[in-house]
């Protein structure tokens, strides 16, 4: 497959000593690679190592009670073995590693976000129903006011655990277990009781799940409360205000008698609409998408953010492209002196980490202490980042500074690859400089640069770093129910919905990301189709 390439190149490139050496070395390696048994040995050893590791990983995962992941890993490894051991299948041999990485790092993430977008995952709906039930029961246990501390020993008999304590009133030693109220036992001491084994701390720790769950009723009347130990040496008297009925699927408040039903929306809800939180994660269908487009306090900010995202991405590409192209043409002029020096300077902004530059710019824009107001405007008080319009302008200006070196590089390369003779032909025919640019250089340039403009658009569409570091999305929108600002783009809004503040809504944030994904995919598809026609024209 690569052979034709090797054949073509030597004819064009002048053969010097270094090239010859390199070619010789490549030939030697190729020779060695085809040496048969050596390759097979390496292949088998490497595949063996992989298989061994995979089997180990599968066993470890199965030991944890995980079944799906080991099955998937095993199937993939089997496939990898087949691909590399079977002769032929050349495309697969090349593509498999890339495909595996694509699935792990891209497809899985996209699919998972898609899944989250259809759930109510977020604050208060954080885990499974079982977790929610046990958390609610845990939270509903209240220590009885002014009740004494019961010093205890943990006892064991026939695999069940018991608490031994001293009655604070009578001083009698009493033993009780699950559903077995405390009662005095003959012959019991502070350290143990006949027929029971006393556990030491190590044994308690080994069985702490069971012991922690142990609740010993004080008397036959459940309303008197129950003893629970939280550290293995003391017990306290608790009462619970919630009762869980797994059969009816209801929580009952034992104090008020209010019954909370599972409402199918991931929380126990009373008839009057009060919810018990924590709830749990459930599938909510298109709710998050519906909310994004219909809830007026979300829809308003969402559409204004959407419009600004497009404006930002389009203007960012346009301004950086125009400036980059202009500079590329200027620095490509043969009359320009010290071109190399200027080119290095030009590329500097591109060499700094973008988030760092954004932070520095944020400092420079400070209304009272920033470089721009203090030095460039002689102490003026221009609210660069606090006025909605100025903040947008400031972002575009910063992005121009950050982005033009890239366009400059790309355009310089593209211009230099335009054959000189076409331009000369134009000159001979009497075309002006502008005509040569407009009708010869620019269309040829666009053929190679247009795909890069599209990817630059997609990049800026999701240019989180810049927005987050420069303005943090501000100034804030006063009337939005979600925390968004005038300069937020979609991706920074998604971040805020998901991770900032006390009310996190991963479901809604994922729904927004899906919308972003669809938009970027659609625009890229349309523009690439457009570029193709451009290519055919030439």
């Amino acid at each position, binding site marked *: 497959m690569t052979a034709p390439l090797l054949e073509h190149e030597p004819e064009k490139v002048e053969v010097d000593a270094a090239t010859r050496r390199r070619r010789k070395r490549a030939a030697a390696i190729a020779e060695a690679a085809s040496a048969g048994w050596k390759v097979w040995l390496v292949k088998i050893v490497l595949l063996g190592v992989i298989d061994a590791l995979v089997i*180990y990983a599968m066993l470890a995962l199965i030991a944890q009670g995980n079944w799906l992941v080991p099955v998937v890993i095993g199937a993939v490894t089997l496939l990898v073995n087949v691909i590399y051991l079977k002769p032929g299948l050349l495309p697969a041999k090349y593509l*498999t590693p890339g495909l595996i990485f694509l699935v792990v790092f891209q497809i899985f993430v996209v699919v998972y976000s898609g899944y989250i977008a259809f759930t109510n995952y977020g604050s208060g709906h954080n885990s499974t129903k079982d977790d929610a039930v046990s958390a609610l029961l845990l939270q509903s*246990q209240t220590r009885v006011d002014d009740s004494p501390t019961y010093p205890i020993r943990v006892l064991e008999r026939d695999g069940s655990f018991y608490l031994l304590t001293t009655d604070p009133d009578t001083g009698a030693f009493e033993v009780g277990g699950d559903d077995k109220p405390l009662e005095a036992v003959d012959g019991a001491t502070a350290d143990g009781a006949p027929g029971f084994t006393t556990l030491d701390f190590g044994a308690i*720790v080994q069985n702490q799940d069971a012991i922690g769950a142990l609740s010993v009723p004080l008397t036959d009347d459940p309303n008197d409360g129950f003893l629970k130990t939280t550290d293995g040496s003391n017990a306290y008297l608790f009462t619970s205000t919630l009762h869980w009925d797994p059969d009816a699927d209801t929580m009952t408040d034992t104090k008020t008698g209010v019954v909370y039903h599972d409402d199918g929306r991931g929380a126990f809800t009373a008839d009057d609409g009060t919810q018990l*939180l*924590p709830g749990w994660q459930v599938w909510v269908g298109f709710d998050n998408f519906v909310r994004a487009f219909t809830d007026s306090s979300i829809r308003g900010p969402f559409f204004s953010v959407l419009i600004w995202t497009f404006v930002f991405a389009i203007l960012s590409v346009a301004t950086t492209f125009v400036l980059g192209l202009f500079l590329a043409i200027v620095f490509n002029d043969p009359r320009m002196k010290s071109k190399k020096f200027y080119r290095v300077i030009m590329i500097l902004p591109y060499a700094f980490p973008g988030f760092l530059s954004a932070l520095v710019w944020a400092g420079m824009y400070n209304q*009272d202490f920033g470089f721009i107001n203090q030095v460039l405007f002689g102490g003026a008080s221009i609210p660069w980042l606090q006025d909605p319009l100025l903040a947008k302008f400031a972002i575009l200006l910063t992005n121009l500074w950050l982005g033009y070196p890239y366009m400059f590089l790309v355009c310089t390369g593209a211009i230099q690859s335009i054959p000189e003779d076409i331009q000369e032909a134009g000159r001979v025919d009497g075309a002006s400089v502008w005509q040569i640019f407009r009708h010869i250089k620019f269309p040829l340039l666009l053929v190679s640069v247009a795909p890069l403009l599209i990817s630059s658009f997609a990049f800026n569409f999701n240019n989180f770093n810049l927005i987050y570091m420069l303005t943090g999305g501000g100034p804030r929108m006063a009337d939005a129910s979600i925390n968004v600002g005038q300069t937020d783009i979609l991706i920074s809004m998604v971040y805020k919905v998901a991770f900032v503040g006390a009310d996190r809504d991963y479901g809604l944030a994922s729904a927004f990301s899906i919308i972003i994904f669809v938009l970027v995919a659609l625009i890229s598809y349309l523009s690439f189709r457009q570029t193709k026609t451009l290519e055919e024209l030439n």
Partner: protein
Amino acid sequence: MRVNKKGAVAIAALIAGSMLGLAGCSGQAASEPKKTTSGTLTVWVDADRARALKDVAAEFQKDKGIKVDLVVKDYGKIQQDFTAQVPTGKGPDLTIGGHDWTGGFVQDGVIAPVELGDKASQFEKVALQAVTYDGKTYGLPYAIENIAILRNTKLADSTPATFDEMIAAGEKAGTKYPFLVGQDPQGSDPYHLYPFQTSFGNSVFAQNADGSYDASKLTIGDAAGEKFATWLGSQGDKGTKVINLNLSQDLAKEAFLAGEAPYFLSGPWNVADAQAKGIDVAVDPIPSAGGETAAPFAGVQTFFLSAKSKNALAATDFLVNYIATEDVQTALYKAGGRPPALTTAYQAAQSDPIIAGFGKVGENAVPMPSIPQMGSVWDDWGKTEAAIIKGSDPVSSWQKMTSNIEAKLK
């Protein structure tokens, strides 16, 4: 064709490498639960706390045979990571955190109550109030923090009792700023401005008899609150410009360290840096702007117990019988510079004039409300204060904020 086989070998090597990596990960994951059942307590701490807890962790292991694994985390990430990881069963048994996270944690069902037993009475009242939520104690407090006036003793010899006198004294000092308080152009800083708000007799929620907040009664919008808003406007862009939104926390700190102001409203976290710069810092009460006592919020640093901990008994034992001791609380105080929460350790720390200064201001402090809705309260509150400082009408902005918050609390 000849070259392709070489390519295949390279690819195989690549896969081997990646599989090694993957297997490495799963290997770790597999050994984790084993560790927990054989007795390991995993505790999330930040770097300072990790150093302070090393000894007590070793002691606990010696006494009880249970290893305490101190995992150093970035403090800023703990709240989010804890909420996300506890439900998966991979979270820690214990974590440090601010008491104001309690409400959110309870709503997400990720923390369990910690029964302090008789130890409860040995803590400072404000610390115990802070970790109490819905009548139960969630977590064990270890440090209390609040803001106060940091005074550069070279530039001013005392802090007057009222705000106007302080500004006058600050201007007499002839420095660039009379007084510094860190702000944010987008969201002001209600936490740092709260002492002035309380000095007008306003509070965000009504207070219970014991001084804690009753989150069901919003009082921020009363007449005293409007008076504070008017005062805030008079100190903003259209007035004296003493409170400047563009002076961020970093800039304010830098100015104080450079000796550009005698007074700086800040917390214990900035004292060490100022002293390192050679500034002789005194800690004074916050002057009153509205006539009543200026009471800041108290923040209480807490150990939380995971609701899904498989080591709940051992973890509680570690907290109640090891962390809640004077030695450990003192060690934590020395590592963080924040007054300890255990009363005996707290009193011992008072010999340090800086701690005593913060402690004196803290006597009036009330724990920050920890209800989950507090997030949106902060949001509206800061946004409105920023607008007022910028010059919008104080009273009407304040009223609008109150109705917004009311709507969100329902």
